[in-house]
């Protein structure tokens, strides 16, 4: 006994004396479990908040791993560079090293597919959404109205996450509840295109019924960002447009192996799908007319830069009246933040330009003149007006005038463009970008085809140089101008060409362009369906550049030929007084010697060769229209049928 007491004494200075099982610690008390969350109104609201954090953000901004959505990793890159409007020359990205090289396979691992089936927080969001829907009814302290609203928002996010994946894969397994993970085996076949579309649309219809048209204006400063009836209806239109497009809705499947696969083909051309899309759009605009609130941001003046500012404000300012739903991942853009590396890695003003999203010559030529008449290289060259194809005037003289569609200067940096656009006045200021070979900004990069100036143009959308410093960042998930163009396309496909032109002109007039038909008198747009379709698609990429439009338009319309087309960049050579090429800078160069800013150049459209794309020389395999499911996932045998060709 005495021994025990002594020992007890020895240890009593540490803790209560315990032996055996009693010595072991208890598991943490009060740990947070499912019951904690769904027995508390505040935590349930938090659960909804976290669901918003799972949403899609369209820019690659962080080299993250783990639960990080891979498509936002610069090492994947933005799939817009697979289209004909942008080109990437950074070999670190999957776009370059797996897609351009033609080496992509179903056996992909991390950072390899443009939309990895597993690692984009899609399925976590779907699970969390269903967990919330399944449990919200029992939460004390929530009004019925709030419960309905929470469920509606969860449904919108589930539908959105489904569409984010659907547009890369076609029909996918339809999950209508959360799983326990204890099942012995799983049978989860892919839904057909039809089932998947109806599933998404069904969720959105249900949601729209319980959501307000817009976030109440008195609450917007704190609550903007929530899903609304407008956003739910708009997403429905986008989904139906995609579904009705020839990729899935045609007389034959996009790939010969897709004949018996309802997950990638409707089985026939079904014109009623276009009607369905048109009706959804009509419903949206009926509601818009009734409820208002959303409208395109209009210019306050008639200078091209005024239109440019209106356009910029429309897509880039938080709370812009034309954004139906935006997604945020951070607050303001501090430029050098590794947690928002979009700028740090992509901005042409950064000394190390890593992820390049260089606009192509093909893209730049899609932008009409400032009055809306189409741009034609050969004609312009023949008229000797190439030196005026971007702007006229110089900084020194203070007479710079933009000559093209004002949106061009928001989509690409062109030679002579000034570095700053004032957010209030629309006045342009700062030095001119020197895009010529040897110029202060481009340096030799258009020749070496490296960095952000690799094509002779540099990206500006969502970057905006110093203009974006400390501005709030956002991704415009759904924007009103897309709705006009979607409606236009649906009208066109259901035979109302005049109605379609009317919708397109709404978008054009905002940036001061003349009517589509008036500006293209030779194209018979009021009767030539295919010509008008081309114009609508062109208008879409001019309006929605880098907004996840062009690549999906190209696959929607199975534009094999466009994919295969060799793309071009523009080499601009500064000419000296005697007309010889000089590869020297002006601002950082002979400006100091009193030389005036050069205004005469020689222009050379060059074939992009570093890198080339596999399909330029080897043809575009239709299998690339959709992504391959990871082979390991197919192998699990729960019913995931691989996409054709992979």
């Amino acid at each position: 006994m005495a021994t025990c007491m002594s020992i007890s004494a020895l240890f009593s200075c540490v803790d209560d004396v315990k032996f055996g099982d009693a010595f072991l610690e208890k598991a943490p008390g009060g740990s947070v479990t499912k019951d904690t969350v769904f027995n508390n109104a505040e935590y349930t609201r938090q659960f909804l908040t976290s669901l918003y954090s799972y949403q899609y953000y369209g820019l690659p901004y962080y080299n993250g791993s783990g639960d990080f959505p891979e498509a936002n990793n610069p090492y994947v890159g933005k799939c817009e560079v697979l289209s004909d409007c942008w080109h990437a020359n950074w070999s670190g990205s999957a776009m370059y090293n797996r897609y351009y090289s033609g080496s992509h396979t179903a056996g992909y691992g991390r950072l390899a597919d443009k939309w990895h089936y597993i690692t984009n927080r899609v399925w976590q969001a779907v699970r969390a959404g269903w967990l919330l829907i399944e449990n919200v009814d029992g939460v004390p302290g929530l009004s019925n109205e709030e419960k309905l609203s929470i469920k509606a928002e969860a449904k919108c996010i589930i539908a959105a996450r489904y569409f984010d994946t659907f547009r890369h894969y076609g029909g996918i397994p339809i999950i209508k509840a959360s799983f326990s993970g204890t099942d012995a085996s799983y049978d989860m076949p892919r839904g057909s295109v039809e089932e998947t579309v109806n599933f998404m649309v069904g969720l959105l219809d249900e949601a729209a019924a319980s959501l307000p048209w817009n976030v109440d204006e008195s609450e917007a400063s704190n609550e903007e960002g929530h899903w609304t009836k407008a956003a739910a209806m708009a997403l429905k239109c986008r989904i139906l447009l995609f579904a009705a497009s020839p990729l899935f809705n045609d007389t034959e499947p996009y790939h010969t192996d897709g004949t018996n696969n309802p997950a990638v083909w409707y089985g026939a051309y079904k014109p009623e799908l276009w009607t369905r899309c048109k009706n959804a759009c009509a419903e949206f605009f009926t509601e818009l007319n009734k409820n208002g609130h959303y409208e395109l941001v209009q210019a306050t003046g008639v200078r091209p830069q005024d239109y440019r500012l209106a356009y910029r404000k429309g897509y880039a300012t938080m709370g812009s009246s034309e954004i139906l739903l935006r997604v945020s991942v951070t607050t303001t853009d501090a430029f050098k933040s590794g947690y928002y590396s979009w700028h740090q890695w992509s901005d042409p003003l950064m000394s190390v330009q890593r992820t390049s999203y260089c606009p192509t010559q093909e893209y730049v030529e899609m932008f009409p003149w400032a009055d809306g008449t189409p741009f034609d290289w050969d004609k312009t060259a023949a008229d000797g007006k190439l030196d005026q194809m971007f702007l006229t005037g110089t900084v020194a003289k203070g007479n710079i005038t933009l000559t093209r569609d004002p949106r061009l200067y928001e989509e690409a940096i062109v030679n002579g463009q000034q570095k700053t656009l004032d957010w209030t006045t629309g006045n342009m200021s700062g030095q001119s970008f020197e895009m010529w070979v040897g110029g202060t900004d481009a340096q030799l990069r258009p020749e070496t085809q490296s960095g952000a100036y690799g094509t002779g143009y540099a990206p500006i959308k969502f970057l905006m140089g110093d203009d974006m410093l400390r501005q709030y960042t956002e991704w415009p998930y759904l924007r009103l101008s897309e709705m006009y163009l979607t409606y236009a396309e649906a009208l066109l496909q259901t035979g109302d060409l005049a109605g379609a032109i009317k919708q397109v002109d709404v978008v054009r007039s905002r940036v001061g362009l003349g009517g589509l038909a008036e500006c293209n008198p030779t194209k018979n747009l009021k009767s030539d369906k295919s010509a008008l379709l081309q114009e609508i698609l062109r208008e879409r990429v001019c309006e929605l550049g880098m907004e996840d439009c062009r690549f999906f338009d190209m696959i929607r319309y199975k534009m094999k030929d466009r994919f295969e087309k060799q793309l071009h960049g523009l080499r601009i050579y500064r000419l000296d007084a005697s007309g010889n090429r000089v590869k020297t800078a002006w601002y950082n160069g002979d400006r100091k010697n009193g030389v005036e800013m050069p205004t005469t150049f020689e222009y050379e459209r060059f074939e992009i060769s570093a890198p080339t794309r596999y399909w330029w020389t080897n043809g575009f395999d239709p299998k690339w229209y959709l992504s391959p499911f990871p082979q390991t996932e197919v192998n699990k045998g729960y019913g995931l049928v691989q996409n054709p060709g992979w």
Partner: protein
Amino acid sequence: MHKFPASLFCIILFFSLFGFPQVVKASVDAVQQQRNISISGVVEDSKGEPIIGANVKVSGGTIGTITDLDGVFKLTVPAGSKLVISFIGYDTKTVEAKNNMKVILEESALALGEVEVVAYGAQKKVTVTGAISSVKGGELTKTPTGSVSNMLSGQLTGLTTVQYSGEPGKDAATIFVRGQATWRDSGPLIQVDGVERSFNEIDPNEIESITVLKDASATAVFGVRGANGVVLITTKRGQEGKAKISITTSASIITPTETIDKANAYDYALFYNKMQKNDDPTAAPMFSDEVIQKFKDHSDPIRFPDTDWVEYCLKDAAIQTQHNINITGGTQSVRYFISAGAYTQNGLFKQFDLPYDLSYQYNRFNYRSNLDIDVTKSTTISLNLGGSVDNSYKPYTGQGSEGMLKNMYWATPFSSPGLVDGKMVYTTTEYGLPFVGGSGMTYYGGGFMSTSVNKLTSDIILNQKLDFVTKGLSFKVKGSYNGSFTNYKNGVASIATYTPVLRGDGSIAYKKSGENSQVSYKEEESGKARNWYMETGFNYDRTFGEHHVSGLVLYNQSKIYYPSTYSDIPAGYVGLVGRATYDWKSRYMVEFNIGYNGSENFAPDKRFGTFPAGSIGWVISEEDFWKPIKPIINYMKFRVSMGLVGNDKIGGSRFMYQPDPYGINNETAPNRLGYGYFFGINNGTISKGAYEQARNNADVTWEKAFKQNYGVDFSLLNDRLKTGFDYYKEHRKDILLSDGTAPSVLGFTLPPANLGIVDSWGWEVSLKWNDNIGKDFRYYLGLNLSYNQNEIVEQKEAPLNNAYQYAKGHRIGARSLYKFFEYYNENTPQRYKEVFGQEFPTQLQTLQNGDCVYVDLDNNGKIDTNDMSREFGYTDDPEYLAGINMGFSWKNFDVTLQWTGAWNVSRVIDDLFRRPFVSGSTNNQGGLLQYHVDNTWNAENPSQSAAYPRATWVNATNNYAASTLYEKDASYLRLKSLQVAYNFNFPFMKKIKLNTCQLALSGYNLLTISDYMWGDPESRATGSPTYPLTKTYSLSLKLGF
């Protein structure tokens, strides 16, 4: 703490009461004296060194003494009596008592003497039946390096060490006992003086021995902690006798073993332009002729520098010193060992003009006091107090300790001329450089990180003999405390940088950007750790004639405060240990061990587990029938053991049996992997999120290892050759994993479950030859060789197309690689067809001459990830590890050499070691190795033996894919240590009582023989390069008083 003395007093008082009667009994003596004679003598070992503390006893009597510091004893004994002279580690000798006698004791047949340290005690070596290997501290200190784990490499069978880094203070080797038997944490349990503690900060001079417990028999008592093997470190203790003072001091020069050559600016530019041309023959060259000319003639070293960063930033050598003084001795009732040591290692990085230390300097101070106090004849109290203070300084890179190396490798030679007149100059693209790239000195001026770790360990042990209850019984109680406090101090600073500006007159001015800032100190988080351990139990050890039995019952519990997860809830363990042994005449041995453990990390009904193990031994050489062979095979023992041991290191998670955890109030933004969200317009306030964190499993439990060991020990030729051989196998099951076969669209990772299985097996041989030629020349040669192999039997991986793709069926750590065939040329398709009988497959990309060609393993006509196999090559940890220890002494010279070799080991080179111009942020503006310049396939010399394929960006996916081409043999044989010592014997030494005066020259990692080209074969050539491994030349002086 203030209660300690009172408690101690209680204990002493209590045992004093039981102890006193025995003291009284002890002083009765013989009455009838025969004629007594006084004798004296000296006891020496075979080298002629006096043996201090040897027991000298009259045979069958009670008279006895021990030898003094000169090995001398004096006794008064009955005439004609016989003396029994014994000392640990030597064969006991019986001689007739004479005056002026000289007794030479031979080292005993068993290397570590009579006893072997085992779990919770010691055993006579001859009766050990488990698989145990050990090494003495004295062997270790011959290797001049700071961390003990590196001294162990090649010293012991069954111990694998891999030293990845040479960073001062962080250079400890990764250790495995008998390889890896789980893909989870496979590190062994490490105990110092019977308590779980790290041993890398221990002064090697404090170590008496290191023992590695390998099989179930030896480790079962550790229960859930024992499956990965156990390493026991025993510190030195005092011996009765006059105070012995030992002083060692050494100074060493450290140099890197291998540094990597980087291409100079000229080669860089040429290689770059060529790589560009490879991809696009029409491309304008990135580096213009003018720039290349400047690189070549170095005519403009500021604007067009050519900096070898490795040379610029690294010193050729740094200084390391090690000092220790220890005193040991004692009276019959109090014995002590007191030691103080200091170790300093300077880093290899240059300091330049910075006012703060960033050289990777590391200092450590150690102290230890081990006391044994016989409070009564039957009561011993031992007090151990040890500790260390270590400080390290390194630059603040924001990328951890790898940052500095990484940036140096990723740098371009023309990014900066380095410091010009104290200014940090970076080049600019304004004068024709196409890009600047990274500098190797981005750390410069960025501040420093200093870490100070203060560790204290203490034990109090009470041992009470309970012979009065029953003979051979004793009681033990032990309490231990470990504490450590870490203070991280970061000083962050910035400096102005400059870019050169060419003036009109051709002179160079500098444009400044940024400002110098003072170092702003920020006291970063300080770490603390504290844990308690206690054990108490009964030990029984008794011989009944020819029967020897022993038993142990012991209870222990420990509490670790501030564990890494749920740091507010301490981690606790409780355990019961049982052992019973029996042997007959040390010829037939049986042993049974059992551990019964509990850990709170498992559900209440699954907390406790039982781990039994049994073993038998047979010393066949003791049998009568052996007699004819005995002159040749002097000794032979067979050992067999088997049993069950557990491993609860299941990945750092705790309490996995609880309901699924949810997170609430998460205020982290999505861009930082958070679950909060920003609602509102230009609203910087984050809305908090709640989310499901993980799925749990109420049934989780520990890993179980069923181990078997078959061993034989024998010695030959008059014990000159001693040999041991062990074969073992292990079946590890219930390894925790997340089932990968479930659909990923469930939206969560399946909770961990005990589903994994690994088999491992191997063998170990040790040989030791010991002999002398003539009187003055003694030599020995030891060899130990270990082989380990394992195979993943079940890992529940997501389904793959081919068996060779799975980790299952392969060694832990096996890599998934393409099989490289050759560099492409127009004949390749034909040759491929000849070799494989198959059509040439579509490769990853469209090939050009000089591109890598891979083998279509699944014969489906195209190369894709289904052709990546884990069947090729080896892993980071070697399958074979060998140590060769040899040495000789001649007169006053002692020479020892220790070689270590490893084979069936490889590294996969990656990052810029694989691909030119890669850095952390770019694929085309990073660093370039000279090895690339020299060994890359090129059209002018299209050699199949080139080390790298045609340089390309376009075909990078193909050419730089993970393949057997980049899996490099990392076998090595290295002279791990060499020591030449001279023992002085000056006449004055006797006067000042100086017994030993030894001057030694030694070296560490002196010579490495390896085909591996990318730095030291033990380091990693990846995107996380490690501090270079170092070699050390050392001069040391050892004095013994």
